[in-house]
């Protein structure tokens, strides 16, 4: 194992802190010397395409942090490069593989939800957190140079959870707003973003907010039979079903039903905590293991290239129309 950073001091500290014997400041030197099987690319997004292409050309499978590249065309190019060279490629959609997201997918496949009608994906972001404060403190931070600023770095977390329910060509409406009380100099970061996606018989709302409190990470899927509410912070799924009893009794039964589900989910999460699996990055652990398994067994990658490119296309449509009219994904 080896690590690489263009700044040698950063490569050195990462290697030392994680007990890794070798570090490099030149990716080509690392690829030549170490000949790795897999390369994880966790650099700023503009460098994803050139670095991943180099790694694929060197015969490596590649795990790229989101977003895959800066636009759909670049992502297509990268996926094509991986296919042509018979290398595997995946993207860091950790929350897509969170235990509750996997459970939801399984239950939907079993018909528990009926047909999905509408999906709402909400991501709160604390600009005062470790990464947010770095971005705010540095006017030259790479986030400021992304076409969609902060939203560009986060939107995949929102879109990958709704894209699987949508067609390849949903109608996209996107708006970014700035609150009247937002006087922070970094408000140009597009930290309040709303996106609406429409298909013939399905719709989705996507909300990125850095002002709403508490900082939330939610997914609600409304189905023809039931509705599922996923809370990625708490790690819970709460199902809402039509009331079985009439009138006030039915309304009360819904409240107590929610309470029982909360108790059950809380108990399960205590057990997850004991097993060491109650963690915000549980999904990322699962994804990495699944990607490695797909390489060992030469099975399909955990995130299909079709889904990756669908997210990239919607993302393109969102950032193309901020400040313009809504458009359809090309």
């Amino acid at each position, binding site marked *: 194992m080896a690590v690489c950073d263009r700044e040698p001091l950063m490569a050195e500290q990462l290697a030392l802190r994680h007990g890794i014997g070798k570090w490099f400041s030149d990716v080509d030197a690392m690829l030549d010397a170490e000949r790795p099987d897999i390369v994880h690319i966790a650099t700023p997004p503009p460098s994803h395409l050139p670095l991943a292409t180099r790694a694929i050309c060197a015969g490596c499978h590649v795990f790229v942090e989101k977003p895959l590249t800066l636009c759909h065309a670049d992502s297509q190019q990268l996926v094509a490069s991986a296919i042509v060279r018979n290398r595997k490629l995946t993207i860091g959609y950790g929350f897509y593989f969170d235990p509750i997201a996997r459970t939801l997918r399984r239950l939907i496949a079993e018909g528990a939800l009926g047909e999905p009608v509408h999906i709402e994906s909400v991501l709160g972001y604390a600009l005062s957190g470790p990464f947010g404060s770095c971005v705010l403190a*540095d006017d030259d931070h790479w986030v400021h140079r992304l076409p969609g600023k902060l939203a560009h770095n986060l939107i995949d977390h929102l879109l990958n959870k709704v894209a699987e329910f949508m067609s390849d060509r949903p109608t996209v409406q996107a708006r970014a707003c700035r609150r009247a009380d937002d006087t922070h100099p970094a408000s140009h970061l597009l930290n309040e973003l709303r996106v609406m996606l429409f298909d013939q018989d399905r719709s989705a709302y996507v909300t990125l907010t850095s002002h709403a409190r508490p900082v939330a990470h939610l997914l609600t899927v409304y189905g023809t039979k039931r509705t599922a509410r996923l809370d990625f912070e708490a790690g819970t799924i709460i199902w809402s079903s039509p009331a079985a009893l009439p009138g006030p009794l039915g309304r009360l039964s819904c409240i107590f039903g929610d309470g029982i589900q909360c108790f059950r989910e809380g108990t399960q999460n205590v057990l997850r905590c004991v097993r*060491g699996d109650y*963690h915000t990055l549980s999904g990322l652990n699962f994804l990495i293991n699944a990607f490695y398994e797909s390489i060992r067994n030469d099975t399909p990658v955990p995130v299909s290239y079709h889904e990756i490119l669908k997210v990239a296309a919607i993302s393109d449509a969102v950032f193309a129309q901020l400040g313009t009219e809504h458009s359809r994904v090309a």
Partner: protein
Amino acid sequence: MTVLVTGSTGFLGTVVVERLLARGVTTIRCLARPSSNAAPLRALASGPYADRVQVTVGNLQSARDAERAVAGADTICHLAAAMRGSPSSVFLDTVVATSRLLDAVASSAVRRLVLVSSLSVYGLADVPVDRLVDEGIGLETHPEWRDVYSHAKLRQELLVHEHIARAALEVVILRPATLYGCGRPLLPARVGLSGCGWLLQFGASHMLPLSHVSNCAEAVALAGTGALPTGAYNVVDDDLPTVDEYVRRYKREVGHLRSIRCPFFAAMLLSGAAERLHVSSKGRFPRVLTPYRTATLWRGHRFDNRKLRQAGWTQLISTRDGLARAFDDRGVRHHVALRRDAHVPEPTATSPAELAPVFSAAVSTRQ
């Protein structure tokens, strides 16, 4: 004489600027990051000290900004460092920033560099507790077993040592104890772990290594004006309280605090259990305590400040008064009082009354 102060908007930096003014430095260039609150310094630069204080906005991670800041400086007081944040941001702001600064120094006319390091760079895990920790004690050999801040400060100091070997530069390294004063959290890590009104107090009778921000700033000003010979110095105040005395006084003068006293052997047992939990949870339980860190931080080593005292440094404010003011701190009046009591020689151009409100404002913004 032009002195560049990095980290000039920080807790220590504002007081260092004050001490350099008091010591008659003709030009002080204050480097402030774009996101920092440089308003108090700007008020100085556009007001009473317009001819002596300059404010330069820049980020030391940028080589261009570093070169611009260093150009024309004779001495650099390098205070900039990250106290908290993600590991990568701490290293970027502390180590990479220092590397850029040293690169800029290499092609400049700078003659003297004053680095504000930390006592945490010493490797004390295997040093007997009865051994007085002076500047001859070896540096940490396992920084990766310590917290990120200590790791970064050690790497920063090693960078400077590497640079000394290459360049003809006078270097003074100051290793302050835990800084305290107005606007600073009053329960430092060396007391124990605190949160939600509780304190897990590690140790009882050992001395708490502290340095009042004004006393540390005085050491930096002495070094910056050439009064300290090159070399490394511990910056620790005299008449320090024990951990027990400190906690008792905190409870009496600040407010209610529920504390559990944990003797050293119990702290080691707890640390061993916490580390095992960290390993068994595959890193999901944070590395809050480790036996190595506990042995380094809470065993009760005493730190020697004789070298600094022999070089001419004296405490501007006694530990007793410093603690009284810090515990009773509500901002403005204590900073003014601190200046009055410390008998600071004021610059001739301006009265103390003109200077104090500016820095008081700086302090109040950190409340």
